[in-house]
């Protein structure tokens, strides 16, 4: 291992887009055992959610999504995490998701925009 120019072991994507007039910064990191997504319009990490596929033998997988930091009364955030973990799981990866989402508005269009932006730039 002479001149080992190691790649950093965690690939990531860093993008910025406009969703309903609000500038949204998205970072998607792919760790060995987790997918980490930050989507923020407010300059902070906002609410952090954890979503994972449950172990089970049935054909249809079940998922567990919980808020680990921040707003616990905003159902749309949980729905957003649930959609993303389903995408991750259906493409074959069993890694859980840590989603950090800080939004100015919690409308369905904004969340759909975030889900589609993350899925378009998938790292799994």
């Amino acid at each position, binding site marked *: 291992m002479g001149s080992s120019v190691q790649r950093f072991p965690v690939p990531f994507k860093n993008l910025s887009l406009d969703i309903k007039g609000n500038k949204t910064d998205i970072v998607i990191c792919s760790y060995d055992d987790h997918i980490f997504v*930050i989507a923020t319009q407010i300059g902070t990490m906002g609410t952090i959610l954890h979503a994972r596929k449950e172990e089970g033998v049935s054909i249809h997988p079940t998922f567990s999504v919980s808020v680990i930091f921040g707003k616990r009364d905003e159902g749309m955030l949980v729905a957003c995490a649930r959609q993303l973990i389903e995408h991750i799981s259906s493409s074959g990866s069993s890694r859980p998701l840590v989603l950090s989402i800080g939004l100015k508005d919690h409308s369905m269009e904004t969340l759909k925009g975030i889900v589609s932006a993350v899925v378009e730039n998938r790292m799994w």
Partner: protein
Amino acid sequence: MSGQNFEFDGFNGSLGNLKLEESSSSSAQQDDAAAGGLQVNCFTEIVDDVTLHLQIIRLHKQIYAWISCNSAKFGHLYAAAPTRPSNTASVACLLGGASDNTGSSIARRLVLKTGLNIILACNIPKNAPMLEVNAEKKLVEKLIYLGYTKPKSKGLSS
């Protein structure tokens, strides 16, 4: 202290600040807007035969950091913030790590040193105090190098 420094730029090329300057609390938002996204900085250091991976994402008034030793696992997640009016820090374990004080003590000391809200993902094994000290030292060095925090004039950590 021998080490190899690597700096890895992401796909959409968000370059970290290479200037050593005092970070000002105001107008940070304008810098981020100009950069077109969050600033993500990745480093790999080798300290005492251990490979430390560090990733620092700067948000306005908040810092996300990931430290890992020899692997690319996410580790335990902690949130820490300064608690006004006294000069203390509050730490919460968000993901795992409740029985492990390595990450929470690093997070607490980072808050005391930087005065910022910190979200720390830490994958450092338990009961390895030298490793913990080295990892924290490297992280603080990088934060100072990137200009996200001012170097302490006294020199010793609390």
